[in-house]
């Protein structure tokens, strides 16, 4: 009962919020609803017994990623409505609807295999005398998934440096523009002539 109610509240709210994200003309609405949706998804994770994942979702997705988006939005004018030319709207919705339909049909059918064995079953850490999702996750993450974990860490580091370098360029300096520099050059030439 409790799970049922919670699931439906979360599911319906998430769907609506994400729909707002996708449909809204206003970036601020989109961002807010997306962030709220993320929070609700972390609620879904709690429902699924993945406490640690839920918290990570909160901290990383809501606390960091979306905040970064919000921060980046300040470079653009967020209060203005986004002007977009929506070409063939019906086609897009048709495709999206088709995809959703396919998913619904596919997942409604009893397609779940029974002969799958859990590689890293829940409750691994109980052998060590401790219990809890965080302990399980830690155990698996630092044994079986150690290398991917380290790689992910390295990737984050690289991404961070890349972000700093990309965004940290001086405002008046163009990374890629050739025309601009040409114009500057012309200006310089004119100055010298004068």
């Amino acid at each position, binding site marked *: 009962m409790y799970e*049922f109610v919670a699931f439906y509240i979360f*599911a319906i709210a998430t*769907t609506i919020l*994400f729909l707002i*994200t*996708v449909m809204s003309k206003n*970036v601020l609405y989109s*961002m807010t609803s997306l962030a709220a*949706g*993320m929070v609700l*998804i972390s609620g*879904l*994770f709690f429902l*699924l017994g*993945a406490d640690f*994942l839920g918290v990570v*979702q909160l901290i990383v*997705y809501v606390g960091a*990623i979306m905040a*970064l*988006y919000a921060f*980046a*939005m300040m*470079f*653009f004018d967020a209060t203005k409505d*986004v002007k*977009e030319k*929506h070409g063939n709207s019906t086609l*897009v919705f048709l*495709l*999206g*609807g088709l*995809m*959703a339909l396919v*998913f*619904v049909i*596919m997942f*409604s059918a009893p397609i779940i295999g029974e002969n799958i064995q*859990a590689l*890293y079953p829940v409750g*691994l850490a109980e052998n060590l005398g401790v219990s809890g999702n965080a302990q*399980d*996750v830690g155990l*698996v*993450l630092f044994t079986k*998934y150690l290398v991917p974990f380290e790689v*992910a860490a390295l*990737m*984050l580091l690289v*991404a*961070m440096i*890349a*972000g*700093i*370098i*990309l*965004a940290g360029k001086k*405002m008046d300096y163009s*990374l*890629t523009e050739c025309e601009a520099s040409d114009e500057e050059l012309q200006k310089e030439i004119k100055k010298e002539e004068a």
Partner: protein
Amino acid sequence: MEIGISHYLILSGILFSIGFVGVLRRKNLLMLFFATEIMLNAVNIAFAAIGNYYGDLSGQMFAFFIIAVAASEVAVGLGLLIILYKKYGSLDLDVISTMKG
């Protein structure tokens, strides 16, 4: 009344489709990023649900790595967005059409 794996998977599929519609529909790059995030989250739900159903932690692991990837994507992607904005003064995809073959 029982909430099974199908519920979560269907929710995940619907959210994915919403993100998909967003990717197809939106022309603003920031919005595209948002739509991508939606899709990533939808997949995360599916992973967590399947992991829960089978009592396997691998599902959660994949979700973690997806979150890590999303974080790096944001770090780099936003940097690029800012550069694009500086260059074009807009984030509209239709403005960025220099990739013509």
